[in-house]
Protein backbone atom coordinates (compact mmCIF):
# COMPACT_ATOMS: atom_id res chain seq x y z
CA UNK A 1 0.00 0.00 0.00
CA UNK A 2 2.65 2.41 1.02
CA UNK A 3 4.90 1.77 -2.01
CA UNK A 4 2.03 2.12 -4.48
CA UNK A 5 1.13 5.50 -3.11
CA UNK A 6 4.76 6.54 -3.35
CA UNK A 7 4.90 5.43 -6.97
CA UNK A 8 1.82 7.47 -7.82
CA UNK A 9 3.37 10.53 -6.25
CA UNK A 10 6.56 10.02 -8.22
CA UNK A 11 4.62 9.64 -11.42
CA UNK A 12 2.61 12.81 -10.77
CA UNK A 13 5.79 14.72 -10.00
CA UNK A 14 7.44 13.32 -13.13
CA UNK A 15 4.52 14.36 -15.32
CA UNK A 16 4.40 17.78 -13.74
CA UNK A 17 8.14 18.10 -14.21
CA UNK A 18 7.89 17.21 -17.87
CA UNK A 19 5.05 19.64 -18.26
CA UNK A 20 7.02 22.34 -16.54
CA UNK A 21 10.06 21.52 -18.68
CA UNK A 22 8.02 21.80 -21.84
CA UNK A 23 6.56 25.07 -20.70
CA UNK A 24 9.88 26.66 -19.99
CA UNK A 25 13.33 25.64 -21.14
CA UNK A 26 13.35 22.26 -22.83
CA UNK A 27 12.51 23.49 -26.33
CA UNK A 28 15.26 26.06 -26.15
CA UNK A 29 17.03 23.61 -28.38
CA UNK A 30 18.99 25.86 -30.73
CA UNK A 31 17.26 26.72 -33.99
CA UNK A 32 19.66 26.89 -36.90
CA UNK A 33 17.49 29.26 -38.90
CA UNK A 34 17.34 31.63 -35.94
CA UNK A 35 21.13 31.53 -35.64
CA UNK A 36 21.42 32.45 -39.32
CA UNK A 37 18.92 35.25 -38.89
CA UNK A 38 20.88 36.61 -35.92
CA UNK A 39 24.06 36.55 -37.95
CA UNK A 40 22.52 38.26 -40.99
CA UNK A 41 20.95 41.01 -38.92
CA UNK A 42 24.23 41.46 -37.02
CA UNK A 43 25.99 41.94 -40.36
CA UNK A 44 23.74 44.75 -41.53
CA UNK A 45 23.57 46.28 -38.08
CA UNK A 46 27.33 46.78 -38.13
CA UNK A 47 27.42 47.99 -41.74
CA UNK A 48 27.86 51.78 -41.64
CA UNK A 49 26.29 52.15 -45.08
CA UNK A 50 23.10 50.49 -43.83
CA UNK A 51 22.88 52.48 -40.60
CA UNK A 52 23.45 55.69 -42.53
CA UNK A 53 21.42 55.08 -45.67
CA UNK A 54 18.70 52.59 -44.68
CA UNK A 55 17.92 53.08 -41.00
CA UNK A 56 14.21 52.32 -41.39
CA UNK A 57 14.83 49.07 -43.24
CA UNK A 58 17.36 48.13 -40.57
CA UNK A 59 14.78 48.84 -37.88
CA UNK A 60 12.32 46.52 -39.68
CA UNK A 61 14.93 43.79 -39.75
CA UNK A 62 15.62 44.20 -36.01
CA UNK A 63 11.89 44.08 -35.31
CA UNK A 64 11.51 40.89 -37.32
CA UNK A 65 14.47 39.31 -35.51
CA UNK A 66 12.96 40.22 -32.16
CA UNK A 67 9.72 38.50 -33.18
CA UNK A 68 11.66 35.37 -34.06
CA UNK A 69 13.59 35.54 -30.78
CA UNK A 70 10.38 35.96 -28.80
CA UNK A 71 8.72 33.02 -30.47
CA UNK A 72 11.78 30.92 -29.80
CA UNK A 73 12.03 31.82 -26.11
CA UNK A 74 8.27 31.35 -25.77
CA UNK A 75 8.76 27.82 -27.05
CA UNK A 76 6.57 28.21 -30.02
CA UNK A 77 6.43 25.65 -32.78
CA UNK A 78 9.85 25.12 -34.35
CA UNK A 79 8.28 25.70 -37.74
CA UNK A 80 7.08 29.11 -36.60
CA UNK A 81 10.48 30.05 -35.20
CA UNK A 82 12.13 29.02 -38.48
CA UNK A 83 9.51 30.93 -40.45
CA UNK A 84 9.99 34.12 -38.45
CA UNK A 85 13.75 33.68 -38.77
CA UNK A 86 13.37 33.46 -42.55
CA UNK A 87 11.38 36.71 -42.53
CA UNK A 88 14.09 38.38 -40.45
CA UNK A 89 16.81 37.18 -42.82
CA UNK A 90 14.96 38.59 -45.80
CA UNK A 91 14.41 41.88 -43.99
CA UNK A 92 18.15 42.09 -43.42
CA UNK A 93 18.70 41.49 -47.15
CA UNK A 94 16.21 44.24 -47.96
CA UNK A 95 18.09 46.62 -45.66
CA UNK A 96 21.32 45.93 -47.56
CA UNK A 97 19.70 46.40 -50.98
CA UNK A 98 18.04 49.61 -49.80
CA UNK A 99 21.34 51.00 -48.56
CA UNK A 100 23.06 50.07 -51.85
CA UNK A 101 20.33 51.76 -53.84
CA UNK A 102 20.39 54.94 -51.80
CA UNK A 103 24.17 55.17 -52.03
CA UNK A 104 24.02 54.71 -55.79
CA UNK A 105 21.43 57.48 -56.07
CA UNK A 106 23.63 59.80 -54.02
CA UNK A 107 26.47 59.02 -56.39
CA UNK A 108 24.22 59.77 -59.35
CA UNK A 109 23.30 63.17 -57.96
CA UNK A 110 26.93 64.01 -57.23
CA UNK A 111 28.03 62.96 -60.70
CA UNK A 112 25.32 65.02 -62.37
CA UNK A 113 26.37 68.06 -60.35
CA UNK A 114 29.99 67.51 -61.32
CA UNK A 115 29.01 67.11 -64.92
CA UNK A 116 27.02 70.34 -64.89
CA UNK A 117 29.90 72.17 -63.24
CA UNK A 118 32.33 70.87 -65.84
CA UNK A 119 30.02 71.87 -68.67
CA UNK A 120 29.55 75.32 -67.20
CA UNK A 121 33.29 75.71 -66.79
CA UNK A 122 33.88 74.64 -70.35
CA UNK A 123 31.24 77.07 -71.62
CA UNK A 124 32.69 79.90 -69.56
CA UNK A 125 36.13 79.18 -70.92
CA UNK A 126 34.76 79.18 -74.44
CA UNK A 127 33.01 82.51 -73.92
CA UNK A 128 36.19 83.96 -72.50
CA UNK A 129 38.30 82.67 -75.32
CA UNK A 130 36.02 84.11 -78.03
CA UNK A 131 36.01 87.50 -76.35
CA UNK A 132 39.79 87.39 -75.96
CA UNK A 133 40.13 86.74 -79.68
CA UNK A 134 37.77 89.54 -80.59
CA UNK A 135 39.49 92.01 -78.26
CA UNK A 136 42.72 91.29 -80.12
CA UNK A 137 41.25 92.64 -83.37
CA UNK A 138 42.59 96.14 -82.85
CA UNK A 139 41.65 97.31 -86.32
CA UNK A 140 37.99 97.24 -85.20
CA UNK A 141 38.59 99.07 -81.93
CA UNK A 142 36.82 96.43 -79.86
CA UNK A 143 34.92 97.68 -76.82
CA UNK A 144 33.24 95.59 -74.18
CA UNK A 145 30.08 97.47 -73.27
CA UNK A 146 26.88 96.59 -71.50
CA UNK A 147 25.27 96.06 -74.92
CA UNK A 148 27.88 93.43 -75.81
CA UNK A 149 31.25 93.37 -77.50
CA UNK A 150 31.24 96.22 -80.03
CA UNK A 151 33.45 96.14 -83.14
CA UNK A 152 33.55 99.28 -85.25
CA UNK A 153 33.83 98.80 -89.00
CA UNK A 154 35.04 102.18 -90.17
CA UNK A 155 34.18 104.16 -93.24
CA UNK A 156 37.29 102.94 -95.08
CA UNK A 157 35.70 99.53 -95.48
CA UNK A 158 33.17 101.00 -97.86
CA UNK A 159 33.55 102.92 -101.07
CA UNK A 160 32.47 106.56 -100.65
CA UNK A 161 28.74 106.85 -100.45
CA UNK A 162 28.30 103.20 -101.33
CA UNK A 163 26.94 100.32 -99.35
CA UNK A 164 29.18 97.51 -100.65
CA UNK A 165 32.20 96.38 -98.67
CA UNK A 166 35.34 96.76 -100.72
CA UNK A 167 37.41 93.61 -101.28
CA UNK A 168 40.25 94.62 -98.98
CA UNK A 169 37.82 94.86 -96.08
CA UNK A 170 36.35 91.49 -96.88
CA UNK A 171 39.77 89.89 -96.44
CA UNK A 172 40.05 91.40 -93.00
CA UNK A 173 36.64 90.26 -92.01
CA UNK A 174 37.22 86.55 -92.70
CA UNK A 175 38.84 85.91 -89.36
CA UNK A 176 35.90 87.53 -87.64
CA UNK A 177 33.48 85.25 -89.46
CA UNK A 178 35.48 82.20 -88.34
CA UNK A 179 35.10 83.14 -84.70
CA UNK A 180 31.44 83.90 -85.10
CA UNK A 181 30.86 80.56 -86.84
CA UNK A 182 32.54 78.71 -84.01
CA UNK A 183 30.30 80.34 -81.43
CA UNK A 184 26.81 79.82 -82.80
CA UNK A 185 25.15 80.70 -79.53
CA UNK A 186 26.18 84.37 -79.85
CA UNK A 187 23.77 86.63 -81.71
CA UNK A 188 24.85 89.63 -83.74
CA UNK A 189 23.44 93.12 -84.05
CA UNK A 190 24.75 95.26 -86.90
CA UNK A 191 24.01 98.97 -86.73
CA UNK A 192 24.82 101.45 -89.48
CA UNK A 193 25.53 105.18 -88.95
CA UNK A 194 26.40 108.10 -91.19
CA UNK A 195 27.59 111.64 -90.79
CA UNK A 196 25.19 114.56 -91.10
CA UNK A 197 26.05 115.40 -94.72
CA UNK A 198 23.13 114.90 -97.06
CA UNK A 199 19.45 114.30 -96.37
CA UNK A 200 18.36 112.50 -93.23
CA UNK A 201 16.26 110.14 -95.27
CA UNK A 202 19.10 109.20 -97.60
CA UNK A 203 21.49 108.71 -94.67
CA UNK A 204 18.97 106.52 -92.93
CA UNK A 205 18.71 104.30 -95.97
CA UNK A 206 22.45 104.24 -96.60
CA UNK A 207 23.20 103.33 -93.03
CA UNK A 208 20.80 100.41 -93.19
CA UNK A 209 22.14 99.23 -96.54
CA UNK A 210 25.67 99.23 -95.15
CA UNK A 211 24.57 97.21 -92.14
CA UNK A 212 22.86 94.80 -94.54
CA UNK A 213 26.05 94.53 -96.57
CA UNK A 214 28.00 93.40 -93.58
CA UNK A 215 25.20 91.01 -92.67
CA UNK A 216 25.24 89.59 -96.17
CA UNK A 217 28.96 89.05 -95.95
CA UNK A 218 28.61 87.13 -92.68
CA UNK A 219 25.77 85.03 -94.07
CA UNK A 220 27.82 84.22 -97.16
CA UNK A 221 30.48 82.92 -94.80
CA UNK A 222 28.38 80.45 -92.91
CA UNK A 223 26.68 82.49 -90.24
CA UNK A 224 22.96 81.78 -90.00
CA UNK A 225 20.72 84.70 -90.95
CA UNK A 226 18.64 84.07 -87.89
CA UNK A 227 21.51 85.17 -85.70
CA UNK A 228 21.81 88.57 -87.33
CA UNK A 229 19.70 91.70 -86.92
CA UNK A 230 20.48 94.89 -88.86
CA UNK A 231 19.48 98.45 -88.13
CA UNK A 232 20.15 101.82 -89.68
CA UNK A 233 20.31 104.94 -87.53
CA UNK A 234 21.41 107.41 -90.15
CA UNK A 235 22.70 110.59 -88.55
CA UNK A 236 21.63 109.63 -85.03
CA UNK A 237 24.13 108.76 -82.30
CA UNK A 238 27.19 110.47 -83.79
CA UNK A 239 30.44 109.39 -82.22
CA UNK A 240 32.28 112.58 -82.98
CA UNK A 241 31.72 116.10 -84.19
CA UNK A 242 30.21 116.47 -87.66
CA UNK A 243 32.06 119.78 -88.12
CA UNK A 244 35.48 118.27 -88.86
CA UNK A 245 36.65 115.93 -91.64
CA UNK A 246 37.98 113.30 -89.23
CA UNK A 247 34.93 113.69 -87.05
CA UNK A 248 32.60 113.02 -89.94
CA UNK A 249 34.73 110.01 -90.93
CA UNK A 250 34.35 108.54 -87.46
CA UNK A 251 30.63 109.01 -87.64
CA UNK A 252 30.42 107.06 -90.89
CA UNK A 253 30.64 103.60 -89.42
CA UNK A 254 28.97 100.22 -88.96
CA UNK A 255 28.98 98.80 -85.47
CA UNK A 256 28.93 95.03 -85.18
CA UNK A 257 27.88 93.96 -81.71
CA UNK A 258 28.56 90.40 -80.60
CA UNK A 259 25.81 90.01 -78.04
CA UNK A 260 26.30 88.28 -74.70
CA UNK A 261 25.32 84.60 -74.53
CA UNK A 262 21.57 84.22 -74.47
CA UNK A 263 20.84 87.80 -75.55
CA UNK A 264 18.97 88.88 -78.66
CA UNK A 265 18.92 92.19 -80.49
CA UNK A 266 15.66 93.14 -78.80
CA UNK A 267 17.42 93.04 -75.45
CA UNK A 268 19.84 95.80 -76.41
CA UNK A 269 18.00 97.87 -79.03
CA UNK A 270 18.52 101.55 -78.93
CA UNK A 271 15.65 103.96 -79.01
CA UNK A 272 15.38 106.12 -82.12
CA UNK A 273 16.19 109.68 -81.13
Amino acid at each position, binding site marked *: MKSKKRM*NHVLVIA*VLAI*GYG*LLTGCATAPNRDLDEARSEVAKVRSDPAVTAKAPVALYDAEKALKQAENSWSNDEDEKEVSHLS*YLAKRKAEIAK*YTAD*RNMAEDQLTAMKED*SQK*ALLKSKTEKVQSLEDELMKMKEYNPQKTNRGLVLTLGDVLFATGKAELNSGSQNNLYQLTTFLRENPDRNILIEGYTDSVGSEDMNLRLSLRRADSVAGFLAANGIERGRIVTKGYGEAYPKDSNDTVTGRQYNRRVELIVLDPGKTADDVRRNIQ
Partner: protein
Amino acid sequence: MKDKNIIKFPLSVLPVVLAGVMGGCGSNPPVEQMSVAEHLIEDADINKSEQYSPLEMRVARDNLESAKAAMTAGDYDTARRLAEKVAVDVETAAAKADSVRAKNAVDELRKSMDTLHQEINTQNSN
Protein backbone atom coordinates in the same frame (compact mmCIF):
# COMPACT_ATOMS: atom_id res chain seq x y z
CA MET B 1 -9.59 4.20 -7.62
CA LYS B 2 -8.68 7.56 -6.18
CA ASP B 3 -5.03 7.01 -6.90
CA LYS B 4 -5.73 6.02 -10.48
CA ASN B 5 -7.64 9.22 -11.06
CA ILE B 6 -4.77 11.41 -9.83
CA ILE B 7 -2.46 9.90 -12.42
CA LYS B 8 -4.96 9.82 -15.25
CA PHE B 9 -6.07 13.41 -14.90
CA PRO B 10 -2.77 15.09 -15.71
CA LEU B 11 -2.11 12.59 -18.51
CA SER B 12 -5.42 13.28 -20.24
CA VAL B 13 -4.95 16.99 -19.93
CA LEU B 14 -1.46 16.79 -21.34
CA PRO B 15 -2.30 16.66 -25.06
CA VAL B 16 -4.40 19.82 -24.76
CA VAL B 17 -1.65 21.51 -22.80
CA LEU B 18 0.90 20.42 -25.37
CA ALA B 19 -1.24 21.68 -28.20
CA GLY B 20 -1.52 25.03 -26.48
CA VAL B 21 2.18 25.18 -25.79
CA MET B 22 3.13 24.16 -29.30
CA GLY B 23 1.09 27.07 -30.59
CA GLY B 24 -1.01 25.11 -33.01
CA CYS B 25 -3.95 27.23 -31.97
CA GLY B 26 -3.95 29.22 -35.23
CA SER B 27 -7.34 28.18 -36.36
CA ASN B 28 -8.32 31.46 -38.03
CA PRO B 29 -7.98 31.61 -41.83
CA PRO B 30 -5.21 34.13 -42.69
CA VAL B 31 -7.41 36.19 -44.99
CA GLU B 32 -5.47 39.42 -44.59
CA GLN B 33 -2.09 37.82 -45.26
CA MET B 34 -3.43 36.08 -48.38
CA SER B 35 -4.87 39.34 -49.64
CA VAL B 36 -1.61 41.20 -49.08
CA ALA B 37 0.37 38.50 -50.86
CA GLU B 38 -1.94 38.46 -53.87
CA HIS B 39 -1.85 42.23 -54.21
CA LEU B 40 1.90 42.36 -53.98
CA ILE B 41 2.25 39.79 -56.75
CA GLU B 42 -0.26 41.61 -58.93
CA ASP B 43 1.28 45.04 -58.43
CA ALA B 44 4.86 43.92 -58.95
CA ASP B 45 6.42 46.11 -61.61
CA ILE B 46 7.11 43.98 -64.67
CA ASN B 47 9.94 46.24 -65.77
CA LYS B 48 11.51 46.01 -62.38
CA SER B 49 11.06 42.93 -60.25
CA GLU B 50 10.36 40.52 -63.11
CA GLN B 51 13.33 41.71 -65.09
CA TYR B 52 15.94 41.87 -62.36
CA SER B 53 14.77 39.18 -59.93
CA PRO B 54 12.96 36.60 -62.06
CA LEU B 55 13.81 33.66 -59.81
CA GLU B 56 12.54 35.29 -56.62
CA MET B 57 9.31 36.24 -58.38
CA ARG B 58 8.85 32.75 -59.76
CA VAL B 59 9.31 31.22 -56.29
CA ALA B 60 6.88 33.77 -54.85
CA ARG B 61 4.22 32.94 -57.39
CA ASP B 62 4.62 29.22 -56.73
CA ASN B 63 4.33 29.83 -53.01
CA LEU B 64 1.15 31.82 -53.53
CA GLU B 65 -0.39 28.88 -55.32
CA SER B 66 0.68 26.57 -52.51
CA ALA B 67 -0.80 29.01 -50.00
CA LYS B 68 -4.13 28.95 -51.83
CA ALA B 69 -4.09 25.16 -51.81
CA ALA B 70 -3.35 25.14 -48.09
CA MET B 71 -6.26 27.53 -47.52
CA THR B 72 -8.59 25.20 -49.36
CA ALA B 73 -7.30 22.27 -47.33
CA GLY B 74 -7.92 24.20 -44.13
CA ASP B 75 -4.22 24.19 -43.23
CA TYR B 76 -4.28 27.78 -42.07
CA ASP B 77 -0.89 27.84 -40.39
CA THR B 78 0.84 26.70 -43.56
CA ALA B 79 -1.22 29.10 -45.65
CA ARG B 80 -0.31 32.03 -43.40
CA ARG B 81 3.38 31.21 -43.42
CA LEU B 82 3.45 30.82 -47.18
CA ALA B 83 1.57 34.08 -47.65
CA GLU B 84 3.99 35.93 -45.36
CA LYS B 85 6.84 34.36 -47.25
CA VAL B 86 5.41 35.56 -50.55
CA ALA B 87 5.12 39.10 -49.18
CA VAL B 88 8.70 39.29 -47.96
CA ASP B 89 10.07 37.62 -51.10
CA VAL B 90 8.29 40.10 -53.39
CA GLU B 91 9.61 42.96 -51.26
CA THR B 92 13.12 41.53 -51.49
CA ALA B 93 12.83 41.13 -55.26
CA ALA B 94 11.79 44.78 -55.60
CA ALA B 95 14.58 46.03 -53.34
CA LYS B 96 17.11 44.00 -55.33
CA ALA B 97 15.79 45.33 -58.63
CA ASP B 98 15.95 48.94 -57.42
CA SER B 99 19.50 48.44 -56.23
CA VAL B 100 20.66 46.91 -59.52
CA ARG B 101 18.95 49.63 -61.58
CA ALA B 102 20.51 52.42 -59.53
CA LYS B 103 23.96 50.90 -59.86
CA ASN B 104 23.48 50.49 -63.59
CA ALA B 105 22.46 54.13 -63.90
CA VAL B 106 25.67 55.17 -62.16
CA ASP B 107 27.76 53.06 -64.55
CA GLU B 108 25.97 54.46 -67.59
CA LEU B 109 26.36 58.03 -66.47
CA ARG B 110 30.02 57.47 -65.74
CA LYS B 111 30.53 56.07 -69.24
CA SER B 112 28.74 58.96 -70.94
CA MET B 113 30.62 61.51 -68.85
CA ASP B 114 33.92 59.97 -69.87
CA THR B 115 32.89 60.27 -73.50
CA LEU B 116 31.85 63.89 -72.97
CA HIS B 117 35.13 64.73 -71.28
CA GLN B 118 37.01 63.23 -74.18
CA GLU B 119 35.01 65.33 -76.62
CA ILE B 120 35.58 68.51 -74.66
CA ASN B 121 39.29 67.85 -74.48
CA THR B 122 39.45 67.21 -78.22
CA GLN B 123 37.59 70.45 -78.90
CA ASN B 124 39.78 72.52 -76.63
CA SER B 125 42.95 71.28 -78.22
CA ASN B 126 41.75 72.32 -81.68
